[in-house]
C-alpha cells in the first residue's frame, strides 16, 4: 500500500498540459461531490452552527427567537458545579475505560499470538461485544448486575462474599460497574488492532532476544512494546475520543444515576439541551468538551512523539 502511494507519478507530462490537468480536476470534483454535499450539509454546517449557538441564548422552542449572548454562557458555566462534577466523572470514566481496555486487550492479544488452542473460539467471542447494539449490551449487563437473582451476586454469595450489592444503584460502585461494561465493549477492537500489530513484528527479533537470554518480560519491554508503540498510540487516542463521546451505554444502563454518580458530560449536555431546552447553553458545554479533548490529546501525542524522537536519537 505504501509502495503504490510513494511511487513517482507516471510521466504523463501533466505540467505541460494544463488543459488535461483541468479536466482531471473536474473529474475528481465530480467523483467527490456526492460525498461532499451530505458532509457539508449534515456534518460541517452543524458543527459551525453549533459553535455559533454556544454564543447565543437559544432555547429549543417551536419558533426560536434568540440573540447574541457573547460569552455569557461560558461565564455562567464557570459557576455550574454540576457540569464540572460531570466533567470529572467523565474523565474517570474515559481514562478508566481506556487504560483498562488497553491492558486487557494487550493481555488477550499476547495470548492469541502465542499459539494456544481455542483460538478460533476466542477470536469469535472477542468480536461479539464489538458487534452488539449498545442498547442490547446495556440490557444484558443490567441482568448480570441485577441485585436480586443476578448471576454476579449469586457467584459472590457462593464464594462467601457479600451478595447483596446493588451494582448499578449504589453510589460508590455504580461508576466502576459501568466502567467494566465499557471495557467489555471496547476491548475487542483494541485486541484486534494490537494483534494485527503483533503479527507484524518479525519473529527473528523475538528469537534473537531469546537467544541473548532475555526472559519473557524483558522480550516484551525490549522488543514487543517498542514495535507496538505507534499502534498503541493511535488506538489509545481513538479509544480516548470514543469513550469520552460515548453516550448510549451509560444512558441505557443508569441514565446518569444513582444521584448523578455516572453522569458523563455527554449525557449531561443531552439533558440540558433536550430536557431543559437550553440549547445555547448546551452548545457552550459541548464546545468546552471539544477544547478539553483536543488539549488532552495534544499533550498525549506530543509526549509520545517526544519519546519516539528520544528513542531514535539514542
Amino acid at each position, binding site marked *: 500500500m505504501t509502495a*503504490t502511494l510513494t511511487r513517482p507519478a507516471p510521466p504523463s507530462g501533466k505540467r505541460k498540459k494544463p488543459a488535461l490537468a483541468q479536466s482531471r480536476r473536474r473529474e475528481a470534483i465530480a467523483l467527490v461531490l456526492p460525498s461532499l454535499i451530505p458532509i457539508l450539509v449534515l456534518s460541517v454546517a452543524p458543527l459551525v452552527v453549533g459553535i455559533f449557538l454556544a454564543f447565543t441564548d437559544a432555547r429549543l422552542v417551536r419558533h426560536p427567537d434568540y440573540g447574541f449572548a457573547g460569552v455569557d454562557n461560558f461565564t455562567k458555566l464557570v459557576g455550574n458545579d454540576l457540569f464540572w462534577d460531570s466533567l470529572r466523572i467523565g474523565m474517570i470514566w474515559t481514562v478508566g475505560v481506556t487504560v483498562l481496555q488497553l491492558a486487557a486487550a494487550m493481555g488477550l492479544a499476547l495470548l492469541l499470538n502465542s499459539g494456544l488452542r481455542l483460538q478460533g473460539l476466542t477470536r469469535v467471542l472477542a468480536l461479539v461485544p464489538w458487534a452488539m447494539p449498545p442498547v442490547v449490551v446495556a440490557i444484558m449487563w443490567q441482568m448480570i448486575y441485577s441485585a436480586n*437473582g443476578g448471576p454476579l451476586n449469586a457467584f459472590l454469595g457462593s464464594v462467601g462474599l457479600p451478595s447483596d450489592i446493588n451494582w448499578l444503584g449504589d453510589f460508590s460502585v455504580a461508576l466502576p460497574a459501568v466502567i467494566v461494561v465499557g471495557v467489555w465493549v471496547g476491548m475487542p477492537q483494541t485486541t484486534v488492532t494490537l494483534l494485527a500489530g503483533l503479527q507484524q513484528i518479525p519473529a527473528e527479533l523475538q528469537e534473537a532476544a531469546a537467544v541473548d537470554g532475555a526472559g519473557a518480560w524483558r522480550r516484551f519491554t525490549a522488543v514487543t512494546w517498542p514495535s507496538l508503540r505507534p499502534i498503541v498510540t493511535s488506538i489509545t487516542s481513538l479509544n480516548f475520543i470514543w469513550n469520552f463521546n460515548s453516550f448510549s451505554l451509560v444512558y441505557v444502563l443508569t441514565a446518569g444515576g444513582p444521584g448523578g454518580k455516572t453522569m458523563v458530560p455527554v449525557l449531561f449536555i443531552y439533558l440540558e439541551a433536550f430536557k431543559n431546552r437550553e440549547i445555547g447553553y448546551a452548545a457552550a458545554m459541548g464546545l468546552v468538551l471539544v477544547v478539553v479533548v483536543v488539549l488532552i490529546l495534544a499533550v498525549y501525542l506530543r509526549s509520545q512523539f517526544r519519546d519516539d524522537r528520544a528513542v531514535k536519537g539514542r
Partner: protein
Amino acid sequence: MRSLVRPAQYVALALYILFLGFPLLWLISASVKSSGELNSLTVSLLPTEWHWDNYTEALEKQGLVRSAANSLIVALASTALSVVIAVPASYVLARLKGKVRAAGVGWILVSQVFPVVLIILPLYLILRTLGLADNLAGLTLVHTTYMLPFALWMLQGYVAAIPVELEEAGAVDGASRLTVLRTIVFPLLAPGVAATAMFSFVSSWNEFFFALVLLQSPENYTLPITLNMFVGGEGKVALGPLAAGAVLAAIPSIVFFSILRRKLTSGLMAGAVKG
C-alpha cells in the same frame, strides 16, 4: 518453571473467554426462562424448562416488529447510499497526492474528535427546517453522512492496493477514464465494498443516539429505541421477552461481524496501521 507457563496461559485465556462470553450466554438463558424462574432467587445458567414463548411474546409485542422493519429500511438505505457515494470519492482520495489528500484524511480523523453532542443540536434544527426530523428518510441521511468517514477510510485502503499500472494499461488501450474506473477499478473493489457495506449496515442497525434525538413518534422508532422503551417502562415485568427481543436484535450484527472477521483483522487495520 517453564512448564507452568502454558497452563497459566490457558487459565488466563479461560478467564477472558468467561468475561467475554458469559454475559451473552446469560442473556440467551434469560430469554428462554419463564418469568417465575427469572424472578425466583435461585440462580442457574440453564433454565429448568425451556420457555420459548418469550420469543413469540416479544414478536407480538407492540411495535417490536415494526421498529425492526424501520431499522432494516434505514440500515439498507443508508448502507446503499453511503457505498454508492463513497466508492468514487475514495478513489480520488487514494489516488490524489499532496495537500488535498492530507486535507481529506485530516478531515476523516477530525470528524472522530468532535462530540456528536455538539453537532446534534444544530443537526436537529437543520433537519426540522428541512422537514426531515422525526422521519426515517432524515435518519437515513444522517446515518449515511456519519458512516462516510469510515467508509471512505476503508475503501481508499482497498483502492490504494490496486496497482496504478492496471489503470494505465486500460488508458493506453484507449479507454476513457470513467470506462477504466467502471471496468477495471470498481470490479476489483468488490471485496472492499462488501466489507464496507456490512460494517455500515451494522453501524446503522446498532445506532442509538441520533435515532433517540431525531425520532419522536413511536411508529418511526428503530429497534434500539423500542428496546430502550421496554427497559424504562415495563422492563422489570417482562424480563424474558425483553431478553428475547435483545437476542433477536443482536443476531444480524453478530452474523455480519462473523463474516467480516478476517476483513476486520487484515484490511481495515492494515489501513490504520500503515496509513
